[in-house]
């Protein structure tokens, strides 16, 4: 096989893996959009906040340390323990659930029956609030996140694929972390799909998305469902935060990956869980292959804008996305 072709395949595989990370963020958006019709601008910040909390708990950081030190002239920073990863993740999940309850109690409850644009604005406010809160609680420095996930090139894949090419080809280079991310994403999507299709709460969740009045009339509490869906979105954000954090450190630019999720959603459709995954993969592969083939001819750095242009093309020809529900308005 020609080496050039093999390189293209490698780029594609790496693109798929990057796409998985986009998809993880997009998944959180889809969940909330499906259940409440809100475009949750804060989803990216939610991932950042989850990752910050996880690192903070793990390393025994004292929350609001800077504030405490400034107020009392102390110099405390750490409790001096290292929490086991498993416990830290469990506690972070609890924090995300508490956050969901607070969001329902202090924001959503007061905005029932408001226009979607108002709810959208509220989530922008929430995004900046959470970013500030994360900063004050845990500090703004870039943190390394180590939850014991395997990292580095997978020798197994490298050796197994080396036979495909000639002497100059050493096999595909694939990060183990990417493989783990792909597996985690797959498990998450399958679990969420089964949950929403076959469980009582999943059915209630879809019911609320369809019609509030009818949902009330069959005995569904809207408030409970909202807390539930924001909790799930928070947990999905935690997973995304762990993956991104392990790959490139926990830093505040993490909240910007939310923007990359937008073109993913336009491709996949705002209401489809599988759509978020497929959309993420297409964007991931697309931008890597484009950079590999055409990028070098036009000066490179195409990954910054390729996804948005692709989304624009989709908006023109298939506005509901690949898997979204087609909206037909009767005149």
């Amino acid at each position, binding site marked *: 096989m020609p080496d050039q072709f093999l390189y293209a395949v490698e780029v594609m595989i790496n693109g798929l893996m990057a796409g998985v990370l986009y998809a993880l963020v997009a998944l959180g958006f889809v969940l909330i959009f499906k259940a409440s019709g809100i475009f949750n601008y804060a989803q990216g910040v939610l991932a950042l906040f989850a990752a910050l909390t996880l690192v903070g708990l793990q390393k025994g950081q004292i929350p609001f340390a800077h504030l405490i030190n400034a107020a009392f002239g102390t110099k405390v920073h750490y409790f001096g323990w290292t929490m086991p990863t498993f416990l830290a993740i469990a506690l972070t999940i609890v924090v995300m659930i508490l956050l969901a309850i607070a969001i329902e109690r202090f924001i959503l409850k007061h905005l029932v029956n408001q226009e979607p644009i108002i709810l959208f604005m509220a989530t922008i406010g929430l995004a900046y609030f959470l970013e500030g809160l994360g900063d004050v609680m845990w500090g703004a420095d870039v943190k390394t996140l180590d939850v014991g996930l395997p990292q580095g090139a997978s020798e197994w894949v490298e050796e197994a694929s080396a036979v495909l090419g000639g002497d100059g080809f050493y096999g595909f280079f694939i990060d183990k972390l990417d493989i783990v991310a792909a597996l985690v994403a797959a498990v998450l999507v399958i679990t969420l799909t*089964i*949950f929403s299709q*076959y*469980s*009582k*709460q*999943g*059915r*209630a969740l*879809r*019911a609320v*998305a*369809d*019609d509030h*009045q*009818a*949902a*009330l*009339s*069959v*005995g*569904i*509490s*809207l408030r409970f469902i909202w807390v*539930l869906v924001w909790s799930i979105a928070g947990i999905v954000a935690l997973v995304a935060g762990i993956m991104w954090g392990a790959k490139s450190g926990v830093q505040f630019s993490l909240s910007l990956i939310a923007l990359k999720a937008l073109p993913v959603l336009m491709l996949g459709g705002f209401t489809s869980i599988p759509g978020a995954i497929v959309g993420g993969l297409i964007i991931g592969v697309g931008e890597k292959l484009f950079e590999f083939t055409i990028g070098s001819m036009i000066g490179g750095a195409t990954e910054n804008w390729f996804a948005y242009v692709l989304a624009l093309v989709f908006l023109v020809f298939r506005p509901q996305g690949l898997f979204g*529900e087609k909206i037909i308005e009767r005149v």
Partner: protein
Amino acid sequence: MTMASAEPYVTEDGRTIGGVVMELKNITLRFGGVVAIKDISFDIREGEIRAIIGPNGAGKSSMLNVISGFYTPTEGEVWFEGKPRPKMRPYQVAQQGIARTFQNIALFSGMSTLDNIMTGRITRMRTGLFSQALWMGKAEREETEHRAAVEKIIDFLEIQHIRKTPVGRLPYGLQKRVELGRALAAEPRLLLLDEPMAGMNVEEKEDMSRFILDVNDEFGTTIVLIEHDMGVVMDLSDRVVVMDYGKKIGDGPPTEVRNNKEVIDAYLGVSHD
């Protein structure tokens, strides 16, 4: 006639219906300066079909919304099963065993007929979030039981052929039937039907009338229904409440109500000279 009573009552067709299940006492409902319901009292007896009729804007739907908890009355009390009902949210009322349908169909249009009717059983499901999420044995057994109950309702309403169809694609008459199915799935103590036959053709109306009578007959379900078609009301109901401009102007068996002068005036209009 509207005195609270546990004694059974014999209708004019010679049917015996039970004691009082629900009593509405001096209900008044105001929206700002608009009075939708003005000091209305009546009762609902176990196993009867109770109709609420009246011209457009008489406050019938508002009354149904008070019973189902969508509106909280400004004044007055709702007594259910012998106790005054505290202020409740609609989903809590549903959990008490009061199911309803809506005038302008409120179905989950993206979901199939089967799933729509399954949601009707939510108040009957007991397993918690945790075992649901993990799909443990208990949740699975429960799901199977509920599925069987839903299949019975589907057979009963003769909608087997549309089990898997998303309800948004169904014709109007069938949507109404699915909505009835969803309400029935809760095995309600009290079933509220808001204009179940509005916008239907004669044949669909006959089908729906038959289903309502069968539900009442086979399951002994107490039904409160709002209807415009006087013929249908006279055929179906055991007792009728007549409303006009938010006030009660008649209450009794169909023949009595039909001959009531005030009722005739409200329906046919009367010249004020």
